[in-house]
């Protein structure tokens, strides 16, 4: 009998001890709660604070190592590059001014006197150090591919293992940074606003290996409008105004409380109850009603395109008429309407938002190449298919539409499947694969029709069009047209009219050959409480709170 009682006591003790072990900590958290969960009116009236949902816990917030948008959003608050871009306008940042040499091959940046958040002076040498750190294979930055597009002398060679000493970046004195280019590059200044090119301080970087310093408030030294004072893995971070920022007078927020909530519905609920003020994402189902009803909901174009790849190596898609028929059979407007996030139907590859040499929008000037955004070209599609030898789709083999597992991708694939069936009489199967498996499958060309998506990181259509050159690692359809390669390489070497004419011609060629079916251009959504004013965003989608304030 005693044994039995002992047994029960043991079981209970086991449960209790485990639960109590877990219960010792909440007390600490609870005491901190009033300051940690500020709702309107809880914080002192004179402190300007807002609650920001960063999204997922960033992989890193070290500018050189980061390659993700959540990390980039944080870095854009804590660091500042040579220039700062807001809504497409370039503002001087750490560089007060810059001169481009006549041949366009040398850009000289004149740096202002500025300080790191620890009070030490920031010089041009910090940029040189930081940039070389970004290129150095030893740093193993996943974003180092961007150096290829800078056209800085020796930069991409350095990424590929060549000497860092040959890189065309130098600091003749503390306030001058000289950048040498291999070819004139019009977008270089705006590209340098990107987080990868923001400076890091050598002594800080060396204080914590592998970017760990940036998340550690004791070691995190930065030069932006805000500095990091707390970081809790998986929970959130605190940024406070950086008094050593050169433009600190213009910074009106005292503190930003960042949360890591990657579940959109939870964050949305928290926004509704006033616990969060800024959301980078909302549940997809809420978007149509938010667009219609909420003035605090914003939809921005994002510089990218959603498309499908034809596997150009297959006999099935050799006939251009077949590819064109399949492209015309898709009702893009209907897909965008079903997706409901304000996506723009795509009849080309370059999205809205790029200005050409005459200041016209590339997307609008380019036109639609006879590809309809609605269902008006279906008769033509049927005609083309008949000409290719498959009247009403008869005899056209069934093929597979492949995408990576996600509700949104599935929806688009199902719509396209239905359109191929009803418009052309072609039967297809759907297959989805887990994301990383899909990457391998697509890269190996082990598919018939596969989903693709591309977002660019700098303000030139080349960043999009160049992925279909024959040597490009991202040329998933395995498209090969020598004339296309020539156009892109000449665009890379030229500026102004010549540059854009080559790009217009290239896109026309791409839309004639159609190695891809363009579907839509991406959009970015945000939900922002009206109490937060003056926030901004770069064209590439990075948020900017340097000029934000709290409405009284």
């Amino acid at each position: 009998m005693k044994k039995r009682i002992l047994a029960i006591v043991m079981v209970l003790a086991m449960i209790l001890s485990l639960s109590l072990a877990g219960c010792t900590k909440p007390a600490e958290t609870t005491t901190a709660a009033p300051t940690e969960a500020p709702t309107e009116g809880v914080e002192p009236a004179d402190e300007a604070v807002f609650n920001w949902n960063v999204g997922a816990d960033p992989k890193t917030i070290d500018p050189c190592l980061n390659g993700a948008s959540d990390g980039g959003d944080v870095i854009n608050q804590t660091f500042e590059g040579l220039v700062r871009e807001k809504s497409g306008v370039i503002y001087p940042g750490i560089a007060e001014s810059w001169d481009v040499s006549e041949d366009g091959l040398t850009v000289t940046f004149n740096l202002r006197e500025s300080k790191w958040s620890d009070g030490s002076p920031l010089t041009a040498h910090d940029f040189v150090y930081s940039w070389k750190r970004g290129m150095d294979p030893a740093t193993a930055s996943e974003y180092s591919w961007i150096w290829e597009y800078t056209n800085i002398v020796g930069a991409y060679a350095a990424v590929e293992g060549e000497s860092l000493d040959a890189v065309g970046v130098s600091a003749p004195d503390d306030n001058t940074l000289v950048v040498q280019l291999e070819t004139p590059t019009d977008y270089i200044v705006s590209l340098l606003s990107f987080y990868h090119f923001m400076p890091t301080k050598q002594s800080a970087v060396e204080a914590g290996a592998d970017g760990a310093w940036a998340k550690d408030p004791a070691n995190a030294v930065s030069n932006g409008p805000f500095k990091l004072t707390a970081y809790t893995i998986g929970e959130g971070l605190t940024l406070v105004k950086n008094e050593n920022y050169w433009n600190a007078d213009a910074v009106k927020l005292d503190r930003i409380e960042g949360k890591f909530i990657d579940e959109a519905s939870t964050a949305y609920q928290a926004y509704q109850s006033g616990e969060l003020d800024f959301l980078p994402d909302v549940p997809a189902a809420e978007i149509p009603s938010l667009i219609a009803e909420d003035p605090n909901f914003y939809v921005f174009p994002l510089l990218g395109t959603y498309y499908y790849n034809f596997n150009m190596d297959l006999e099935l898609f050799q006939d251009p008429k077949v590819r064109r028929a399949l492209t015309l059979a898709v009702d893009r407007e209907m897909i965008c309407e079903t997706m409901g996030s304000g996506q723009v139907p795509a009849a080309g590859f370059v999205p809205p938002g790029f200005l050409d040499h005459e200041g016209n929008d590339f997307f609008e000037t380019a036109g639609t190449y006879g590809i309809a955004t609605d269902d008006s070209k279906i008769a033509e599609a049927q005609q083309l298919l008949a000409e290719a030898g498959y009247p009403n789709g008869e005899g056209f083999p069934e093929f597979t539409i492949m995408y990576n597992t996600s509700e949104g991708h599935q929806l688009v694939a199902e719509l396209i499947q239905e359109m191929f069936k009803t418009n052309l009489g072609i039967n297809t199967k759907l297959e989805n694969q887990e994301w990383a498996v899909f990457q391998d499958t697509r890269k190996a060309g082990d598919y018939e029709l596969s989903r693709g998506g591309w977002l660019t990181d700098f303000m030139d259509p080349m960043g999009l069009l160049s992925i279909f050159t024959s040597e490009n690692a991202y040329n998933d359809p395995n498209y090969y047209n020598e004339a296309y390669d020539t156009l892109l390489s000449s665009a890379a070497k030229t500026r102004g009219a010549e540059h854009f004419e080559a790009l217009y011609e290239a896109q026309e060629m791409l839309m004639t050959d159609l190695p891809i079916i363009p579907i839509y251009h991406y959009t970015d959504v945000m939900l922002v409480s009206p109490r937060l004013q003056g926030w901004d965003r770069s064209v590439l989608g990075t948020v900017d709170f340097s000029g934000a304030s709290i409405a009284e």
Partner: protein
Amino acid sequence: MKTYYLKRIFSMLITIILITTLTFAMMHSIPGGPFTRERPVPDEILRALNAKYNLDDPIIIQYLNYMKGLITFDLGPSYSKIGTTVNDLIYSGFPSSAKVGGLATILIVVLGIPLGVISALKQNKPIDYFVMFMATLGITVPSFVIATLIIYFFAGKLGWIPSFGLSTPASYIGPVLALAGYSLSFVSRLTRSSMLEVLRQDYIRTARANGLTELSVIGRHAVKNALIPVVTYVGPMIAAILTGSFVVEKIFAINGIGRYFVESVSNRDYTTIMGVTVFYAVFYLIMVFFVDVAYALLDPRIKFKEGK
């Protein structure tokens, strides 16, 4: 007894080695890797990344190195949080998972067992129907639905609890209920059916015939014996619940380790996959071991063979 325990511990070690080896082999055989990106990383950088994490060694060397690290409790660096070790992830995540899980366990045991007992005693009475109805609901309604509903009503409509995190005592209500729902229902059903079985046994009739009070019959004889299957379930359940739930932690935005079980696999974050799997396996085996010990104490018929 001592030999039995030693044997058990030895077999646990073998099991852990097996689990580790199998996980390691399966993990490396699925397509994709930790540096798989939409935009491929330049070759030289990929080489540098592989070299940095010793992924360029032959697979058997990688395995041996991992096992060497494991012995010293060094779970290696996480690939998806640069500069953070898997040990850090577990240290920072486990307290939250364990807090929520611990409270859920208390709720399950303190509420589930009595509900099952009452249900059995009042078999086919309204209270039995009610409890079993709720239990069926608890088993069939998935935790993400419970979690979403709790957030919607209690955080959204009523504003009684915060929508996310564990910042106040009230914020535990949502995750604990969502996490406990299934097991609470299961335990009460299990207790009920086990109780009904025990109540039909001869020794209960004998106890009653001997004129023992009803309280004594139920409390000292019936419940104790009815608990054996419940203990079997509760032991491993504790391991599962304390190591967190992907769904509950994601929906309530709790920094626990439950989410790493799923996220690490889609990220091909090899070290984190291994780390959380080993952590869970060890925890689970220990709980199963406790259950076996509890059996012997709970039921004198169960004896361990000694000395053979």
